[in-house]
């Protein structure tokens, strides 16, 4: 049962952030009981919404002094339960820390508060011909603080790399309220050990980043987007292998299966995929104009050779955006098929994709579950979407067993248990599949260095 906060503690928090920004009434904590992973629900003791580094520092100092656990939360779009509350913890949310502090177009750097939405940063840097490269599917809603915590990826990370490649400096509030700075001015690892690199992907266990300096990229001169339509997932998988092994360097290669196509086309983001296709590949090239058409032609040949029924090209920016929308909004569109959805995340070597996909389909059949696949095929990052109804207790258990089997399968072919969603609460149990006891102990000790008391996001990642 969720414990209520001692009134004096609540009053001290209110004195720091203002009374409107501390939520303690149990009825109002219901909205915070899940993030993007709805399989779990736990209401926190309170929610605190600070606005500045100083306020975060004072809030953490108070909570640390009282020995109260802290659960950092951005937009709550995460899919591994990283922001799932604990019943004796307090959420420190970054929703009000949503200012872009500076854009340095000469040095191609931006500094933001953690609550800034990923897509908003790209929009704000557009006038300078720049953009922020990591593009999670949830980029219209997820925040940079959350991206840093989860080391988020996205479709274009195939060519450009994930969040860790772009974070150059951090202001971090430690568990006890101490404020420290890592890196900065684009020189993240210039002096000493790379603490920025260590912090990115720490899933809220090391501290709360309150100022984030990121590297921006110049917008590519040109872009070509193809849609390859296939009868089967296996044929699409072969096309992916051929494209990559032919030496091409696509910015993104995304695969969408039949069930997902049907869901997306039924949603407001219908992208015009034919609903009778067995699989669709979204392939994108970007860079200098010269050579782009050649790359696109070669990719088209790979698709046709692998048995594509049809290959389309986006003729305009509008068509391109529509095509991507269909892919990026797939998660939400699944709501049309089933009441609940578990988006799994795992990575396998690209060459093993066809056999792994076939096996996942079998696992779905064995457990009587519908599994839809939409994922980053270029880097072998799978997202099996398992559809279920939480009201059906038996089905819920089958989902858990099927998930474990999928994870075991991915690890057995040389893959791992997450590609970009993080471990959070959902994958914690799978950690021994990929780490031995020595490695797990190293993770615990790394965590201890930052948070000796173990008050930050306890129970997540490793126990």
């Amino acid at each position, binding site marked *: *049962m*969720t414990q209520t906060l001692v009134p004096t503690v609540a009053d001290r928090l209110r004195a720091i952030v203002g009374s*409107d*920004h501390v*939520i303690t*009434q149990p*009825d*109002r904590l*219901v*909205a*915070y*009981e*899940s*993030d*993007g992973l*709805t399989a*779990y*629900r*736990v209401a926190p003791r309170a*929610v605190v*919404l600070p606005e500045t580094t100083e306020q975060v520092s004072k809030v953490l100092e108070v909570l640390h002094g009282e020995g109260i656990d802290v659960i950092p939360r951005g*937009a*709550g*779009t995460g899919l591994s339960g990283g922001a799932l509350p604990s019943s004796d913890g307090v959420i420190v*949310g970054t*929703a*009000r820390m*949503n200012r872009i502090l500076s854009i340095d177009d000469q040095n191609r750097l931006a500094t933001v508060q953690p*609550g800034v*939405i990923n897509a*908003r940063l790209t929009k704000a840097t557009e006038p300078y011909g720049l953009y922020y490269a990591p593009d999670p599917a*949830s980029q*219209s*809603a*997820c925040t940079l603080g959350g991206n840093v915590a989860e080391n988020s990826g996205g479709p274009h990370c195939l060519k450009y790399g994930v969040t860790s490649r772009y974070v150059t400096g951090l202001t971090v509030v430690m568990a006890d309220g101490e404020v420290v700075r890592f890196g900065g001015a684009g020189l993240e690892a210039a002096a000493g050990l790379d603490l920025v690199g260590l912090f990115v992907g720490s899933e809220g266990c090391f501290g709360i980043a309150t100022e984030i300096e990121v590297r921006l990229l110049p917008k590519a001169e040109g872009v070509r987007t193809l849609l390859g339509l296939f009868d089967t997932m296996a044929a699409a998988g072969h096309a992916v292998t051929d494209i990559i092994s032919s030496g091409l360097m696509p910015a993104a290669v995304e695969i969408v299966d039949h069930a997902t196509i049907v869901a997306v086309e*039924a*949603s*407001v*983001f219908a992208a015009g995929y034919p609903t009778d296709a067995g699989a669709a590949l979204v392939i994108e090239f970007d860079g200098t104009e010269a050579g782009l058409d050649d790359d696109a032609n070669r990719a088209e040949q790979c698709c046709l050779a692998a048995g594509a029924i049809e290959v389309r090209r986006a003729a305009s920016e509008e068509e391109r955006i529509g095509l991507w929308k269909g892919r990026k*909004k*797939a*998660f*939400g*569109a*699944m*709501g*049309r098929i089933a*009441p*609940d*959805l578990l988006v799994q995340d795992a990575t396998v070597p690209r060459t093993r994709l066809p056999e792994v996909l076939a096996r996942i389909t079998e696992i779905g059949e064995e457990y009587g579950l519908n599994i839809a696949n939409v994922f980053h095929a270029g880097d072998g990052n799978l997202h099996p979407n398992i559809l279920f109804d939480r009201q059906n207790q038996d089905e819920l258990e089958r989902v858990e067993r099927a998930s474990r089997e999928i994870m075991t399968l991915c690890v057995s072919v040389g893959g791992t248990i997450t590609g970009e969603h993080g471990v959070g609460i959902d994958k914690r149990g799978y950690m021994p599949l990929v780490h031995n006891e020595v490695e797990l102990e190293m993770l615990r000790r790394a965590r201890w260095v930052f948070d000796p008391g173990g008050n930050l996001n306890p129970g997540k990642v490793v126990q």
Partner: protein
Amino acid sequence: MAGTPVTLKGGSLAGALEAQRERLLPCVHCGFCLPACPTYNRLGDENDSPRGRLHLMLAVVEGRLDPSSDAFQTHLDRCLGCRACETVCPSGVEYGTLLELARETATEARRPDVFSRALLTVMGSRALRALFFLGGRFMRVTGLANVAVRRLSGDGIAGKLRFALAMLSATEEAGLERHGRASGSGAWVSAADDGSSLTPSPPVGSAGVLHGCVQDGLYARINEATARTLDANGFDVRVVTRQDCCGALHAHGGDLTTARRLALRNIEAFERVGVDWVVVNAAGCGAAMKEYGVLFEGDAMEERARAFSDKVRDISELLVSAGPRVGAPVECSVAYDHPCHLMHAQGVTAEPLQVLNAVPGVDVRVVAKADECCGGAGIYGMTHPDLGARIGGDKVAAVRDTGADLACTPNPGCMMQIGAGLRMEGASGEVVHPIELLDQSYQRAGYYT
């Protein structure tokens, strides 16, 4: 804890929302709606986000939240009902419908404040409404409303009264006459070289215009302009008597019973005349009437209501389907803002701008963040003075930033809200409906003679 029903303080759970469990399930908690929500953007509290409100509704349905609780009451009441969340929702959650049902549940659990109840009572009765708007027009024509806006100050009751009177004063007709007639000699004639603007197209069907409550009471000129411009574009405009308020305000306030009673009257009135199209010039009314079918879901009336809804069109949709004819120049600049109930509830965005394009000489400047609510939302400025003022203030700033002569938006609530905001800042606060501009343009072109 998770899934454990609690004993409700207020007795049994109201049925309205419970029956809608199926509508709540498509929400997968993805959070894509958060950045689209004007209240979440300003408050940062997930209880004030669409996802949070849907979760509160789900908690009521699951029996673990009391509908009379502060959380359910406060956060549902604080929703503007702008439905910007529906535009970005990949799961197609019917938020607007759910909100109305949730508000019915909320008002059953706890009576709304006397002010809101009084307003709904007045709007639901033809006689009271006539009296109310007669008083309004008296205040407007005598200039008392304007004087009060200048003299009143402060917060509390005086502040609310001042805002209400500013809304009233914003309904004054803009002086379109004074705006220039031509940028160059014969400019508009050349725009019509193909002859399309000179002769109406062949008859394109019969149309009846919804008079509405606020439109009829304070914006009769827009209803008249609607009929004239339709006629000039070849529609056979029929008079539809015995029609009533569309019921949108009641539905939004959770009084679905009155909303259905009013809807039924309108369905009967328009059926009696037998028009091809039911034309609406108020975004809020159009959105509600296009959803009469949903309002009567499961009722014997459902099929009739759906057939009626299929005929409902915003005036801009109908005019664009017929052309519209290009008129004579009206030289002015307008700051255009999208009404939420056109853009998000009806998916109509391009048509009003196409109507403005039929008026040579108009310089249309779409305001920044035109897809965000102006804060009008019925009488939000009075029920939520602080938050309403913040949302409204941002919109007024965006309108002023355009430097345009007039504000322009096709919904009476938004016209009043933006006009009031401008007037409270001491600006002239002239606001026009796009149809008023088209009408002025047609008058100058001689289409009505």
